[in-house]
C-alpha cells in the first residue's frame, strides 16, 4: 500500500462538482471511511413518501466506491466505472444516509467493490451496490 494523503478525501470531494451537487461528505478513520449524504429536498425522487431518488442512492454509492479506491490505491486519475449493479432494499427516507465500501479485489487493472448504504440502522440497509472499476496506472 502506498502512503496515504491525509487530505485526499477533502480534495476529491472539493474537486468533483457532482459530489458537491448531491452534498456528500466523508469521515475517515485510517484506511476506513464512511461516506455521508445529508438529506436535502433536491434529492427527493418520490414526494409522497417522501423518498430519496433511487438514482441518487446509486450515485452516492458509486461515489463511495470511487472514494474508497482513492484511499487505498495511488491513482493518477480517477478510476472509471465499468459496471454497477444496484439493489434497492428499502425506501431512502428523508434522513442522512451513510455508506461504506468494501474493496473485494484489486487486480492490476480492475477492482471489484461492494457498497452498502443505510440510514438509522446499519443492519437494515436501504441499498447496496456491486461494481467493477478500471484503475489508472499508479503514480510514478
Amino acid at each position, binding site marked *: 500500500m502506498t502512503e496515504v494523503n491525509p487530505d485526499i478525501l477533502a480534495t476529491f470531494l472539493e474537486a468533483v462538482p*457532482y459530489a458537491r451537487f448531491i452534498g456528500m461528505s466523508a469521515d475517515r478513520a485510517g484506511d476506513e471511511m464512511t461516506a455521508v449524504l445529508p438529506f436535502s429536498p*433536491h434529492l427527493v425522487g418520490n414526494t409522497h413518501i417522501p423518498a430519496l431518488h*433511487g438514482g*441518487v442512492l*446509486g*450515485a452516492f454509492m458509486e461515489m463511495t466506491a470511487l472514494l474508497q479506491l482513492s484511499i487505498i490505491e495511488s491513482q493518477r486519475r*480517477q478510476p472509471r466505472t465499468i459496471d*454497477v*449493479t444496484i439493489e*434497492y432494499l428499502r425506501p431512502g427516507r428523508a434522513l442522512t444516509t451513510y455508506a461504506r465500501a468494501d474493496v473485494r479485489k484489486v487486480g492490476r487493472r480492475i477492482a471489484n467493490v461492494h457498497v452498502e448504504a443505510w440510514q438509522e440502522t446499519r443492519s437494515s440497509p436501504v441499498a447496496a451496490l456491486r461494481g467493477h472499476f478500471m484503475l489508472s496506472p499508479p503514480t510514478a
Partner: protein
Amino acid sequence: MSDSPEYIEIAAGRMVRETPQAVALGIEFVSAEPGTATMKVGYRADLIGDPETGVLAGGVITTLLDHVCGLAVNTRHEGGGTATLDLRIDYMRSAEPGRAVFGRAHCYKLTRSIAFVRAIAFEDDPDDPIATAQGAFALAGAPAKS
C-alpha cells in the same frame, strides 16, 4: 412535445416537473408511447464527475436511466407507482463533455407485480451508447403474490 396518449403526457409531466431530483438535474421529457420513453439531461458544469476530463458523473446517467425506466413502466401501468428493485448499468464509454445525454427505456414485460425494463444512454446515436441498463421494478398496488 410528442403526441403520446394523455395519461402518458400526464405521467411524464409529473416525473419531470414534480420530482425534485429531476428538476435539480434538469431532466426533460422528450417522447413516450406505450412501452417506451425518452428523456434527456443537458450538460452542466456542476454535474461533472471527473474534473480532469469534464465528463458528467456516472450518477447523473444512473438517475436519468432510473427515471426514464420508471416512465417506461408507467406507460404500461397507468396511474400506478413503481419502485426500483434493481438496476444494472454497464458503461461502454464516457459521455462526451458539453453534450446533452438522452436516456431511452423499453418496458418489454409486465407481470401483475413486476416490470422488466432495458434502457440506453446516448448523445445522438442509440447504436453508440454511453451506457446500457437492465432493471426490475415492483408495481405499487400489485398483489403480493402473483
